């Protein structure tokens, strides 16, 4: 089964961004291995163990 876990974010034009492993931003870092240590959302990013339905729906549009 495909691993769809990762950080998800809905951007400014309502498109989904997906980062399975990491986000290195100028002011913060999110790592998959530390996913349970964060308080979400962080700059719009939220961890999902499986892809959210809205994301899946957006792929089929």
């Amino acid at each position, binding site marked *: 089964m495909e691993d769809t876990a990762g*950080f998800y974010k809905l*951007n*400014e*034009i309502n*498109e989904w*961004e*997906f*980062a*399975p*492993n*990491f*986000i*290195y*931003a*100028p002011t913060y870092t999110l790592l998959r291995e530390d996913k349970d240590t964060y308080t979400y959302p962080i700059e719009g990013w939220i961890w999902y163990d499986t892809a959210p339905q809205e994301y899946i729906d957006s792929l089929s549009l």
Partner: protein
Amino acid sequence: MAFNLPSKNTYIQKKPVVQPPTYTRPLDWIAILAPPANEVFYLVSDISPIYTISTTFTRLASQNIYIDWGDGVIDTVSSLSTSTAHTYTVGGGTACSRGYTTWKIRIYADPGATITLTKFIQTVNYTQLPIGLLEAHHGDGTLSTANSLFTPTTVLAPYLEYFKCPSTMSAAGALFFESFMSCGSLQIVIMPTSAANNTSFSSTFSRCSRLQSIVLPSDSILVTTYLNTFQFCYKLQNITLPTSMNFVTTMAATFQLTQIQSITLPPLPACLSYATTFTQCAYLTSVRFTSFTPTAQSITFQGTFNACYSLQDMVFPPFANNTILTLTTTFANCASLAYITIPDNILVSSAGLNTTFGGCSKLLNVRLPTSMPAVPTFPNTFQNCYSLQSITLPTTVSSSISLVGTFSSCISLSEIVIPESYNITSLNSTFIGCTTAHTITLPSGSQDANTSLFSTFSNCNSLVNLTMPSTMISCSTIATAFNGCTTLQSVTLPPIMNFVTTAQTTFASATNLQSVTMPVSMSACTNFLSTFQLCASLKAVTMPAVTSPLVTTYATCFQNCYSINSITLPTTQTTALASMNAMFASCYLIKTIDNFDKLGNTSALVGNVTYIDGSFLLGFSPLFTTSITTPTKWSRFTINGSSATLRNSITSIRLTNTGAGQWGGASPQINISYTNLDTAAINLLFADMAAMPNVTSKTIVITGATGAAGLSAANRLVVTNKGWTITG
């Protein structure tokens, strides 16, 4: 729950059954017998209580005439020509079941006085309430002329149901010009049995929408015009014409929108206009002309039978040699007509064959004259002739000829030959939708007067090969020229097409196209939107070496070219390019793209330069083991694979323009996920990004890129220090 489904045939117009006109006079209207000579009876109502009657009479001495208004008031009229007004008390007449009351007006004369004309007039202006006249009965002698009795600009009589003329109207000149125009309730008109000196039936019954039958005076043989005579008489089925029509010069719109079903016209030796004569006679099945003018004249048949959906039988009698016919829209939308012959001895006017047979969906065969030397245009001539199986165009036309839409949607034409002698000025939509045309033959030499290939062959789904004219230097558009030509395999365009400004969707959805030779030079072309989109069989394309430097879009230009492996882009450096959105999307077998660096403005200056939207530029491309360097400015740049297994094999991407203002597109602004960029290649790209001005809230996605895992914290800081976010 039960549903009543509509019958399958409910959309078919049923022909009306021809019956004698039925007129049921309300029983509770005041009885009116036929008036004696020199008297007039009117039945009026209090729908409108104010009436003004104009009277004219002659007398031997001092006799008068009288108007008995029917309510106890009798006016004596002593002036030979005057008008008399009267106001009724609303509700004061004889009640009737229609909710109003009525009065009978009687106009009569002293012995020795002769009434020559009575009619209603409006004393204020025609915008006042229409009069409530219900019936008019003229005794002999009392109506010297019926000109303009009831018209929107004289007096409106929308409730008038019955009108009887005197038995004889002997005055000379136009007697029935616009007589009953717009009498929407008029059901019966008893015309005189004799009106031998009448010269006009112009608009006589126009818009009498309830009139079913009419008998014109049989001796009205001096009439010169039947212009609009029965136009818009929606229920009119029976018409008895005079015995002779030798002086008629126009039959324009005579029967337009009536319910006549067949007609035989007497000889019309002076008539030069049949414009819209039968337009929209939806039930007309047969028209017989006896003969036309015996000398060569210009006769117009513009729109004569337009929208005669039931017309099946129409044969032109002989014309005098060299008679000039105007045939624009003549048979348009004659959806039941199967055969038409245009006599060979006539000349078609310079108006050409504009939509002449357009919409003749059952037309099987048309015979045209072989020579039409005055005709410069065949616009939409056979448009939507769904059944037409063959056509031979005249070999001689004007010095140039426009073929705009000529054969559009002729879905049964399998072969179309444009004569070699034609000097074509436009091929705009000429063959669009000719879905069974497997052979289209164009003149082989130069066609340098042709200005358009817009949609010329669009959706010609049976066309396999096509030989284009050798040169077309004046052509300004090839947009959608071959769009949807799903069987077309090969096309060669002329080498120089420097007036073409757009190639938008030119070959889009030509799914079987395997070979295309583009012009070498298209120096004015600025639009390549979707030019080759879904050319699924195309393996290689060489774009024109020369294009306009002001090309604005290549968006989806090669999208879904699933087989393509080689694209050579123009060598012209573009300066105004704004969109490459999905330019190469789904080009799964692409190996090489030459001249990528010629796309976009190389200036680093901010301001009057564009930033290219490169969203979804190139996706899964396992054979694209190459590198790209682009010196232009981007708002978004996306070259990425889809997943770990559906990779894009590109090995290097260099974004060398250091200008400010880039990356105004949505996040992620740069996407190189699932590419084969190794760590060193990503670091080179990071260095390019670091050479640009700082950004805020911009993202680069490197998910699954070969070198993503090898980046060190120091490597990442190169771009995060410039404001970028890296995701992966």
